[in-house]
């Protein structure tokens, strides 16, 4: 099989990448790992089921969505704004960590991980959920089902779901404007 390449340009964690020649049909997960050395996105099932590999993508209107990278070709992300697990915390000019994202912080406070393999996916998934709630708050009574619906697709082999849900619920409730009533 001949390897045909196509130029790819995108923004990853705020940095412009490309144009760079990337084989057609290369999965995004491999592109992140092999071309950008961003190895935080995890390969779990490789079939779009476990959501360990999801990254955050900004749509044109700025709203965020999750996208699995194990079954999505790198070129699908052409021209898009992508955030991987490496892009959540903030660093100073020297590369020192200066702060975690609210989701990361909530996860740490709730010790919401065990082996941590699924955590990047959960962080990205929860980040998308918070963004959606900012745009469209839900009534308090629907919060639980909304969180479950959003994170349900993420699989944690250590079965750490309870703490993940607690961390996200806590964060949502203490962030103003995400729930009604």
């Amino acid at each position, binding site marked *: *099989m001949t390897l045909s390449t196509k130029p790819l340009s995108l923004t990853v964690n705020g940095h412009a990448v490309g144009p760079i020649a990337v084989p*057609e*049909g290369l*999965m995004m997960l491999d592109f992140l790992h092999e071309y950008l050395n961003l190895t935080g996105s995890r390969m779990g*099932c490789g*079939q*779009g*089921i476990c959501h360990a590999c999801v990254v955050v993508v900004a749509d044109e209107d700025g709203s965020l*969505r999750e996208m*699995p990278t*194990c*079954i*999505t*070709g790198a*070129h*699908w992300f052409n021209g898009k704004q992508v955030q991987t697990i490496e892009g959540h915390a903030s660093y100073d000019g020297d590369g020192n960590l200066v702060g975690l994202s609210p989701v990361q912080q909530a996860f740490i406070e709730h010790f919401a991980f065990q082996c941590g393999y699924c955590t990047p996916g959960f962080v990205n998934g929860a980040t998308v959920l918070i963004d959606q709630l900012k745009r469209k708050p839900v009534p308090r009574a629907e919060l639980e089902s909304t969180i479950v619906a959003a994170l349900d697709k993420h699989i944690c082999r250590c079965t750490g779901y309870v703490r993940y849900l607690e961390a996200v619920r806590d964060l949502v409730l203490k962030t103003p404007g995400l729930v009604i009533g």
Partner: protein
Amino acid sequence: MTRLRALGWMALAVMAGAGIVALLPHVLGTTVVGDDVERPLGENEMQRLAQAGGYVARVADCYACHTVKGGGAWAGGMPFKTPLGTIYSTNISPDKQFGIGTWTRAEFHRAVRDGIGRNGRPLYPAMPYTSYRKMTPEDVDGLYAYFMTRQPVAVENRRNGLPFPFNIREFVAVWNFLNLGHGGFKEDPSRSPVWNRGRYIVDAVAHCGECHTPRNSLMAMETDKYLKGAVIEGLEAPDITKEGLTRMGFDPQSLVRFMKTGLSAQGAAANQMLEVVHFSTQYMRDEDLGAMAAYLFDLDEMPDLASPPPAPAPVPVPAAIASSAQTTYANLCAGCHGPRGRGIPGVVVPLATNASLRLASPRNLIHAVLHGIPAQSFPGRERMQPMPGFADVLDDQAVADLANWLRARWGGQKPAVTAADVAKQRPGAVQTE
């Protein structure tokens, strides 16, 4: 006084009308049920028949309609959304109050084969008595004995949500008069026993035509389009005539395997057909599945060896469509289905040999692309992973391009899908059929 009298006349007229309506089933009805079923079955007979009846119930797939998920077995309550309103299946467990516990053999026969309920009022043809009419009295006895030996479940029947005038059951008698064939099943002496057995299963017990034969404006099966495929709840129940099956890439053997396992090179059973495999065909005897396949392929016996019909020749598509679709395919489909559409055995269905690309209608393909397919388990512990839906990732034109290219490349179908076709199948779009 005059007003009172007028009211009186009106009441009389209504009563007379109701009387005539109540007579409709008797005036218009024809029965295929013989008088011999008036004799009740003895206990030994019942026991012997119940065993055979269990198999008949499986072939007839009674469970799928008469048991709701999480509900008692045979207790009914399954909703059927018809264009006229919602009809609920009834309790056919032997419960004396709500089920069929007090039904006689003859009453049961008349319900199954004539579509006439115990009280003499017609059943709605959502119950496939139009097909069951062709069942043999022995098989109906088997069903009767089988159900009467099940666990009674005291669940009350749900009221149908049918508006006037469809809630007047007696009018179904008119429908029956117009649409119900008068006779039972007749063997064709010029064909083999295998072919005849296959026809009996397909037409009578398994009632395949109820989904696979299109219906006319009166909701009756169009006999001249027998098994030629129909749209049911927004999806295509494909053409299963010999030509249709061949077009999909089936040969008699692979069709048998598909009915037994739900899996095949032509794709995995999905939606309603998956239920049929799940509750019915997987349990059928090999010789019966073989007979069905032989009949559907119009053969007098199953061939020892069959090979799949040749793949359809690819059809050219305009360059713009190909380039849009190829990009979509590489980005969103190839990760699972593979760059050459070969799939992953036991995990992801192949596309290169997939029946949904070869059907005349693109409906099922578009539906899968937009809505995805849930994870499914198949007989023998096989499983298929879920396919994500791409409704919020691809716009109508991109889906149309993809469908056109896939169908042209692997299905040999002309690229005629438009963005408007796709829009009609979006979540929330008003279904016109």
